[in-house]
C-alpha cells in the first residue's frame, strides 16, 4: 500500500526546471533513500512534500488524500515530519525545552515529563538535557532534531542528510536509530550522500538527476547501474 504518491510534480524557479514531472511512490513501512548529485532537486522535492514550496503542476497524495494545497502545519497534522539538512533546533533554548516544545501539543503534566525522559534516553542526550542546544556538537544537534521530528509520532519521517558532518560511528548509530523507528512502524524517506548509511538502512533507493527520477531499485541494483555511476562522474550526457 502506498503512503506517499508524487504525481508528475513540476517546479520551476524562473527558467530553471528544478523538478521535472517527478513520479514517486513510497510504500508504507519502507525506508526509502533519495540520492543524486548536487542540484538534482532532492531538497526541493522535500520542500514540495512539506508545503514550503508549491508545485507549478502535479499532485501530492498522502495516505490517499490530496495534500497539494495544504499549508505546512496542516501536513504535519496529517502525519508528516522532517529533519532539515542544517540542524533546525531552537539554538537559544535548552535541550529539554526543545523536546518540550515538540511534545507539548500531545502531552501534558506528568505524561509530558515521562515522554521527555523517554525521548532523551532514546537519543542518548540525558546528561545534556540542561545544555543550551546551540552548544551541542553537530552530531548531537542532528539527533536532537531527529528526536523532535519523531516526537510527533509521524507516519512518514523525512530526513534531509541525517548524517551530514557525522563521524562513521555516529553515522552507524544514526542508522540504527532509523532502523528502530522503522521497526516501530515509521515510514522513512531520507536524502543521503553517505552510501554506507544508504546500504545500512535503505529498502529501496531512488536516484534523482536534473530534477527527474533517473533510476530506482535496491541498493545493489543502483550500485551496479553504470548510468548512475556516470552521472556521479558528470558523464550522463556524454
Amino acid at each position: 500500500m502506498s503512503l506517499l504518491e508524487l504525481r508528475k510534480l513540476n517546479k520551476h524557479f524562473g527558467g530553471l526546471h528544478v523538478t521535472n514531472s517527478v513520479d514517486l511512490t513510497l510504500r508504507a513501512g519502507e525506508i526509502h533513500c533519495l540520492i543524486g548529485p548536487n542540484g538534482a532537486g532532492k531538497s526541493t522535492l522535500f520542500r514540495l512534500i512539506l508545503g514550503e514550496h508549491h508545485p507549478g503542476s502535479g499532485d501530492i497524495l498522502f495516505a490517499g488524500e490530496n495534500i497539494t494545497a495544504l499549508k505546512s502545519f496542516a501536513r504535519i497534522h496529517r502525519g508528516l515530519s522532517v529533519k532539515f539538512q542544517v540542524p533546525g533546533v531552537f539554538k537559544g533554548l535548552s535541550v529539554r525545552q526543545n523536546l518540550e516544545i515538540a511534545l507539548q501539543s500531545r502531552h501534558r503534566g506528568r505524561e509530558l515529563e515521562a515522554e521527555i525522559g523517554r525521548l532523551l534516553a532514546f537519543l542518548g542526550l540525558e546528561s545534556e538535557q540542561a545544555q543550551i542546544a546551540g552548544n551541542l556538537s553537530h552530531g548531537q544537534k542532528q539527533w536532537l532534531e531527529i528526536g523532535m521530528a519523531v516526537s510527533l509520532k509521524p507516519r512518514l519521517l523525512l530526513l534531509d542528510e541525517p548524517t551530514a558532518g557525522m563521524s562513521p560511528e555516529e553515522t552507524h548509530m544514526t542508522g540504527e536509530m532509523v532502523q528502530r523507528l522503522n521497526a516501530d512502524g515509521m515510514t522513512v524517506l531520507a536524502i543521503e550522500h553517505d552510501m554506507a548509511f544508504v546500504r545500512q538502512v535503505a529498502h529501496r533507493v531512488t536516484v534523482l538527476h536534473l530534477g527527474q527520477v533517473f533510476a530506482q531499485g535496491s541498493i545493489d541494483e543502483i550500485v551496479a547501474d553504470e548510468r548512475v555511476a556516470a552521472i556521479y562522474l558528470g558523464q550522463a550526457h556524454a
Partner: protein
Amino acid sequence: MTGLLAMFRRLEGPQTAGRGPAFWGLFALVLAVALAYPLFSDGYTVGNTVYFFVWVFIALSLCLIWGYGGSLSFGQTAFFGIAGYGYGILTINFGSAYGFTLVALVAAVAIAALFAVLLGYFMFFGRIAGVFLGIVTLAVTLMLERFMAQTAGPEWHIGTARLNGFNGMSAMPPLTIPWPGEPIVLFADVGLYYLVLGLLVFVYLALRILMNSSFGNVIVAIRENPERAEMLGYDIRKYQLITFVIGAALAGLSGVLYTVWGQYITPSSMGMTAAALPLIWVAVGGRSDLTSTVIGTLVVLAAFQALTIYGSQYALVFMGVLLVLTVLIAPNGLVLGVMNWLGRIATRLTQRAG
C-alpha cells in the same frame, strides 16, 4: 484548584529571570516600598512616578513582541495613540458619569487591539517578517502622526470632540470611579498611582505566567527558528498574531493611562522620537526578559528626565549613545546582563555552602 496551582507555578520558568524565595522576597519588598511610597512623598513626585509607570506597559508590549516573539515592531506608538485618542473621543462625547471613564478605558484598549488584529492579519498571514515588519509598523505610526497633525480645522471632529491637529486633544475627564455619595476622581497623584501600580503588578505577573506556559514556549520557538516551529505543526501565523494583539493592547493601555494622566494626547506621541524611545528602554534593559524590561525602562526614563533639565536634545543624544553602548557591550541588555551575573554568583555561593 490544581489548575490554579499549576498556573501560579508558571510564575517561574525558563522564560523569565528570577526564581526562588530570594527573588520573590525581593519582589515583595519592592512592592511594599512602592505601596508605602506615596505616604512619604509629595503629590507632584507621586504624579511623576505615575508618568514613569505609564510607559512601562508599552515597554512590556515591545518586550513581548520583539524580545520573546522575535518580531521587531517599530510602531507600538500607533496603538498608544489610537487608544489615547479613543479614550479622549469617547469621554469628551459621553462624559464621566456612571463610571463611563472605566468603560472608555476598556473600549479604547479594545479599539487598539482591533486595529492590531487587522494590521497583524495582513502582516503575519502575508508572511512579512524581519526588517520589513519594522518598516511596515513604523510607516503605520508615522502615517497616523501625519494624519492627526493635519486635523487642526474645525471640520475635524468626532461628535463634540475636536481633533485639534498638532496641538492635540485635551480636557478629557480623568478616570472616575462611581462611589456612593461622591465619585472618586483619580487625578495624577496618589489615587491614580495605586491604580496604575496595581495594573502594573497584574500585567507583570500575568505575562510571567503566559510566557512560561505552552503558549510562551511556542512564541520563543518562533523567535529561535520559525521554520522548525511550523514543522512541529504550529500555525505560527496565529501565534504571532495573538502575541501582536496582546502587545497592542498593552501599548494601548499605556496610551490611555498617559492620556488620563496628563489629560491630553498629541500626534507627536505617535511620531519618530516617540516610536524610537521604547526600543531603547527595552534594548537597554534586556528585551528577552520581563523583569529586566521593567527595571531598565524605569531607570532609563528617570535618567532621561534628569538629563532633560540640561536640554531635551542632549538627553536624546544620550539615549542614542546608550543604545550604541548596549549593542556593543551587552547586546542582550545591560540589566539582564547584571541579573545573570548576580544569578551566577548566587549559584556559586549556594554550591559552596552546600
